[in-house]
């Protein structure tokens, strides 16, 4: 959980197309060049349906680009077999999904601890304490025995954030982690996410609709018409009072 594990991600000329049920091909991303340096925070903006989640999924090895090369720490993504992908996903990436994806029959604590099932022996033995610590950091220390259906949307999102960070990943990929929160709570969560990322020295790729929140990131990108272009640098003005 130290800052020395800098994993560089690099997309080179990447395109992503989907074949629709009627056979027509939908181009979502085309010729995207993008690199994420270890430790930096990146905000991704863009309209709904522009391809933000798709970009994140490629970065997180959940899907491959249709064309082009994706390099994870110097390794070509489409040369990895499924076992290696799973290992990399577990060790290097932490996901916060747009719709949380919590396990229904598991308590908040168990959901947070889930990634540690595949971690080292020491981390596995220590999983409950680690999960409890993380839940405390996202402000849910008193809800560890609650099931997802007993939590509000925002609380579920915070459980998802804690789960993404519990194994100390090199890169956190967060898909609208503040989408269902009011502006203050959203900022709070983002603050937690940013400070935890800074603490652990991990990169953070953050998809958000919120122009103001995006300014908390080191760098801002906009996905538009299939391409990704930079926006004026973030951290210009503070959002929180």
């Amino acid at each position, binding site marked *: 959980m130290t800052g020395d594990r800098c994993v560089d991600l690099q997309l080179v000329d990447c395109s992503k197309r989907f074949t629709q049920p009627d056979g027509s091909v939908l181009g979502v991303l085309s010729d995207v060049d993008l690199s994420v340096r270890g430790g930096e925070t990146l905000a991704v903006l863009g309209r709904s349906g522009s391809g933000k989640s798709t970009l994140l999924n490629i970065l997180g090895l*959940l*899907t491959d680009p249709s064309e082009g090369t994706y390099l994870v720490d110097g390794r070509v993504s489409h040369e990895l077999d499924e*076992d290696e992908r799973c*290992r990399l*996903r577990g060790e290097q990436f932490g996901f916060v999904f747009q719709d949380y*994806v919590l396990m229904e029959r*598991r308590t908040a604590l*168990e959901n947070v601890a889930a990634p540690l099932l*595949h971690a080292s022996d020491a981390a*596995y033995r220590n999983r409950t304490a680690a999960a409890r610590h993380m839940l405390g950091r996202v402000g849910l220390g008193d809800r560890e025995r609650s099931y997802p259906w007993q939590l509000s949307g925002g609380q579920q999102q915070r459980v998802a954030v804690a789960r993404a960070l519990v194994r100390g990943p090199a890169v956190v990929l967060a898909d609208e982690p503040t989408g269902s929160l009011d502006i203050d709570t959203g900022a709070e969560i983002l603050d937690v996410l940013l400070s935890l990322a800074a603490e652990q020295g991990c990169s953070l790729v953050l998809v958000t609709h919120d122009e103001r929140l995006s300014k908390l990131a080191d760098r801002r990108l906009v996905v538009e018409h299939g391409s990704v272009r930079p926006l004026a640098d973030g951290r210009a003005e503070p959002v929180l009072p």
Partner: protein
Amino acid sequence: MIGRLLGEAVVELRRNLARTLLTASGVTVAVTAFTLVAGVGEIARNAITEDLEGVGGRAGTVALTLDTGAPLGEVGTARAADVMAERLGRYEPRARGRAVLATSETVRRDVAPLPSKDPDDLPCGSSTSFGGFPEDSSGGFSSGSGQGLFFSSPCTLPVYAVDPELLGVMGAPMVAGRWLRPEDAKSLAVPVVVSKALATQLRDVEHPTLESLLGSVIRDEELVQQPLVVVGVVGDNAVTNVLGQPGAGFVPFEARSRFTPTGDRGMITAMAVIDPAGAERIANQAAADARALLTQAGFSRPAVSGERIDEAGALGSALRVLDLVLLAIALVTMGLGAIGVLNVSLMTVRQRVREFGLRRAVGARPRDLAVLVLCESVQVTLIGGIVGVGLAMVVGLVLTLLGVDGVRDLGLVGIVRPAVLGLLVAVATGMAGGLVPALRAVRVSVLDALRR
């Protein structure tokens, strides 16, 4: 990793109690039904086998026979019998033994035969048709406490000296009393087991039933040196009939010289039960081998014949039908159980595909998912299966207590084999059911799995 996944499986099962119980109870019902059917089937199978073997002999019974025409003497007989038994013993026999025709004499009984409605039913035919003994012969007598049996209507009494193991070869049921034991060779009066056909001939007014013959003494002063004590009655079947016509007596092999001073009669047989497939060929082969060995050992042109002597044709087909019926019932019950398990697991497939997608996103490999599912299935089906076996035992016990015919044997022991089988099938079913969502989650991309 397995340990971690086992723990995870336990949590999964506890948290999804409804699903767990539904699956387990499906397995329970199937295993109970299967175990009962298989247990009853086993009893039926044994009963049918016993009945059929009682008539046709055990499947795969082969015999080597050396017909010398003249007595070989004490040593020669034992030698020849040993050689032949040894030849047959090479073919992984399930049972084997030696037999020697010790005496075959026409004897008479002097007690009035039981009145019979049908004159043809009279034992030993008419009183004049067999020669050798005048009507007024007083060959038999009573002495001491034993009641002597002897024959006023002459009939043939072939006596075979046999290894006690030969009962296992013959496969004939004991009708009364007991079969020969190894220690019988040393007892003072030579024990004899008579075949049912002979016992029927021996019945008279004083010995109206087969049981009442037990303990009585067969004497014939001229021919049988020592009295023979009847200790048992054995049924006739295709194999016992090969040793002479229906109706024979069996005495211990080692004791044969004690009651027949004239020596063995020159019919020496070794029998064994072997794999029915190729039994004829093996019998011929063993006969040729025995001929060669006996020639080497100094017997001049030994006439050894080898043949298969059981009549197991009917036996095979009857059991095949039973097996088919049982297989059908077993398949149907297990099929129903499998449908139940699959139904439950398909109900939860959608939810689980998403869960498995998430697990893959946080580092689970496809094989981890498969192992997780297997851990869950094995636990659930084992629980369901063990309860099922327990239930089957209880049902078996109740049927036993109620005294339902034929269920007496369905004790705790008889149920073990079908129970183990049932459990295995149940576990296999559970695995198949649980693997469906796991395979689906692995086949679709992680992303698609997460979106379900």
